[in-house]
């Protein structure tokens, strides 16, 4: 399936763009997405943490992705 991934903060710098189009196998999970990102962008290994949000909610590693999901990379937050 085709996914469009939104990137914020340092993940946007690492991707060099605020969106990334990614092809993943059907019923890929969050952990598969993270593995694919780590493979393509070794700089992700340097982050203190990386969460993934699906449809504006923090997602667990075993959540299955669907093609229409809004997926976002959430590096460590620092608001306030």
């Amino acid at each position, binding site marked *: 399936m085709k996914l469009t991934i939104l990137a914020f*903060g340092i993940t946007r710098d690492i991707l060099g763009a605020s969106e990334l189009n990614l092809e993943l196998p059907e019923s890929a999970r969050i952990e598969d997405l993270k593995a694919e990102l780590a493979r393509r962008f070794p700089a992700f290994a340097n982050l*203190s943490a990386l969460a993934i949000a699906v449809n504006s909610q923090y997602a667990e590693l075993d959540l299955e992705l669907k093609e229409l999901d809004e997926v976002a990379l*959430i*590096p460590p937050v*620092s608001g*306030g």
Partner: protein
Amino acid sequence: MIDIQILESPLNVQVCIDFVSGAATGGINVFVGSVRNQTRGKRVLYLEFEAYVPMAISEMRKIAETACSRFQIDRISIHHRTGRLEIGEIPVVIAVGAPHRQAAFEACQYAIDTLKQTVPIWKKEHFEDGEVWVAAHP
């Protein structure tokens, strides 16, 4: 009553206080963030805040709802700013109104502590010799 806003323009503390003020309100606690001129001993020129807006609003609303259910409070207003902020400007305002002050203090502290942990907003510090996304690296 819950008021959540993410704004690109300067925050107005009084607007938040007015929102949480009512005839049954006995005490209001307010947290106002302020951009410091230094961090870890290094001079800061300015900050930039970026938000994943729909999710940030959703997470801020969760904080407000949890605060209302966990503490004896009536009203909470959380405003966060985005974009470039100069030294002394205000990135965040949290105001909490309650019949009794202790609940207002506790809910306000809970809200700012949790906001800093869960709300998808990112701060980039700009120094004379570079810039850094806060907390991104260990």
